[in-house]
């Protein structure tokens, strides 16, 4: 196509201009892809983290209210519930239960609020494959050996032990081997305490780990003086996580048929329900609540939306600068090439072809420069990810849901970024191109001066 050839050759002819705009497009696309990769990485952290630390793919939680203002996270006859889950969901691969509590960890030199998960070590292979022991520098000031890790997850099999995350250990100024006190309130409002030994400190998972600690089941049973058969939540892992929502609905229907009272579905994490929703409801007794991992992670999705919004705002700002640049440059080019355009019109080229000529010029620039930028961005994202760069700023860890930069470059994101910037580039050329299309062929006849 000759128009394509003219457009391409004009780009090559004004090399300085092309290089300048091309570099800008390259840079913005690169940044765009990096931000998208980061968002994908955090999403990945969220999915992997949420389904290991705080949720199954599908959960059966329970709430108990002895008075209308009361709220306690528990289910009774947990073994029966597990059997119901197995029966309702043949594709369930793993079905476990955890006890849930809420209280304070008190150490010699500090205290923190935390959720307390009572677990059976042997049931939690997924959890411990997600967690890594934190190096000393993550929670101690000026450690002699910053990379040293202490403790052992398997010690959670011993009674009266606790697993903390680095962020908590830092606030508590606690160390593996220290004894800390757990303090909770029982159903009747009495406080109960238990002394536990810190056996492991795990690396932070940002917001996911901010309010989580793990103790053996018996520790929670003792704290709340639960009767046998009581637990906090049944966590169900499916063959395919994508079936979570469908599975939740099937399980809800199954439990309803079996006569269990249930809360209405509400996409909120359990602690919001425990601390806000359920205490405000006017009923007493026990109700079950079936949720998906997405419900439990809904508040974390805000982080991802925030990341997306920031990326979008940044890219839009830079894209605006590019629009101004391209549109100015094209206006100059149209002015410089007035006679040439007039000539093309005189010898029989249509207005629409002239329009196309300039749009094409911007689009070629856009696709080449942003294509290169997109590939470079994906490459850099992969390199950063491979380098497993550690993040030392706590605020960033919270948002990243990890203490390590995790970027996932995806083909679809590169395609989106390149498409968006190519479009932006062509769109920026629209008004100058329109101006070019309006140039009259008379111009061709006018003498040089």
């Amino acid at each position: 196509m000759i128009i394509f050839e003219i457009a391409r050759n004009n780009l090559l002819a004004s090399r300085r201009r092309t290089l300048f705009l091309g570099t800008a497009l390259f840079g913005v696309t690169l940044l765009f892809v990096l931000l998208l990769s980061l968002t994908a990485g955090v999403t990945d952290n969220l999915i992997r983290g949420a389904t290991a630390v705080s949720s199954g793919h599908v959960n059966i939680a329970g709430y108990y209210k002895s008075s209308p203002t009361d709220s306690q996270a528990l289910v009774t006859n947990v073994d029966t519930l597990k059997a119901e889950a197995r029966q309702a969901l043949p594709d369930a691969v793993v079905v476990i239960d955890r006890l849930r509590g809420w209280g304070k960890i008190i150490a010699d030199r500090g205290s923190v609020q935390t959720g307390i998960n009572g677990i059976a070590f042997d049931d939690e292979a997924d959890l411990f494959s997600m967690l890594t022991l934190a190096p000393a520098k993550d929670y101690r000031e000026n450690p002699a050996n910053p990379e040293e890790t202490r403790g052992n997850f398997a010690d959670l099999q011993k009674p009266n032990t606790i697993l903390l995350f680095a962020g908590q250990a830092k606030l508590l100024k606690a160390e593996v081997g220290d004894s800390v006190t757990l303090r909770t309130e029982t159903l009747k409002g009495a406080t109960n305490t238990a002394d536990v030994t810190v056996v492991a400190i795990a690396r932070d998972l940002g917001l996911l780990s901010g309010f989580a600690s793990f103790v053996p089941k018996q520790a929670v049973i003792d704290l709340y003086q639960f009767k046998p058969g009581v637990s906090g939540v049944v966590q169900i892992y499916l063959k395919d996580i994508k079936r979570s929502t469908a599975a939740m609905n099937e399980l809800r229907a199954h439990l309803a048929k079996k006569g269990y009272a249930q809360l209405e579905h509400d996409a909120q994490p359990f602690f919001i329900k425990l601390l806000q929703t359920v205490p405000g409801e006017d009923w007493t007794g026990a109700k079950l609540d079936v949720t998906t991992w997405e419900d439990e992670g809904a508040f974390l999705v805000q982080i991802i939306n925030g990341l997306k919004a920031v990326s979008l705002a940044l890219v839009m700002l830079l894209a605006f600068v590019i629009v101004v640049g391209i549109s100015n440059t094209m206006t100059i080019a149209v002015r410089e090439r007035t006679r040439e355009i007039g000539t093309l019109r005189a010898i029989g080229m249509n207005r629409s072809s002239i329009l196309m000529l300039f749009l094409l010029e911007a689009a070629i620039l856009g696709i080449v420069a942003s294509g290169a930028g997109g590939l470079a961005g994906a490459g850099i994202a992969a390199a950063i990810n491979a380098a497993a760069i550690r993040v030392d700023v706590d605020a960033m860890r919270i948002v990243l849901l990890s203490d390590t930069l995790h970027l996932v470059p995806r083909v679809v994101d590169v395609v989106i970024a390149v498409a968006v910037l190519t479009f932006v580039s062509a769109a920026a050329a629209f008004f100058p191109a329109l101006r070019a299309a309006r140039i009259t062929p008379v111009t061709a006849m006018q003498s040089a001066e």
Partner: protein
Amino acid sequence: MSAIIEVQGVIKDYPLGKLSVRALHGVDLTIARGEFTAIAGPSGSGKTTLLNLIGCVDVPTEGTVVFDGAVTSKLSDRELTRLRLEKLGFIFQSFNLVAVLSVFQNVELPLLLQGGIGNDERKKRVVDILDRVGIGKYIGHRPNELSGGQRQRVAIARALVTRPKLVLADEPTANLDSVTGGQILGLMKELNQQQGVTFLFSTHDHRVMELAGRIVQVQDGRVVDDGKQGKTPTSASAAAPTPAAH
């Protein structure tokens, strides 16, 4: 055979701020097929304006221009464009080649715009016409690698490659030295005689006028002599020669 061009009572006004400038004051002119006609006149006399109207790049304010049977003021922009593409060839004072295309591509361009010609046929026509104008050796060059005379030869090839009914040339030699200008006009004349293409060109150069079969004299937007009585006598030294005003 009917005339290729009939200009009847044409007035052309150009807007100039709130006023307007009258560039043509009622022009009548008929050009027959196969003619080799010069429009002569001093700078500012309205030569370019007249050629624009005949070349369908502009339409008259009043009066009619009939090109090959079509009244140009009744056609849309799209139709005028099609008409120029199919039936007209243009040669410009400043050559006006597309800088970023090769000589070959410049000449191929109108054929590509026309479409409907097979690849081989198109290539052959381009090569043939470039050979004919003596530029066969420079097929792959860019215009800026050629001299003025060579560029104008390429422009002639571009104008002729579509086998138009009329070729318009607005001061085709004004940017060339006199020897080269003479050669270019000689080439145009040859093509007129061998291929029967109708040429209409403007000039204010007397030596160039010599070659014309007919000279239409324009002054202050009026045709003062339409050259129908035969060749304007060379004794036209009476008509004061206008110094080249470029």
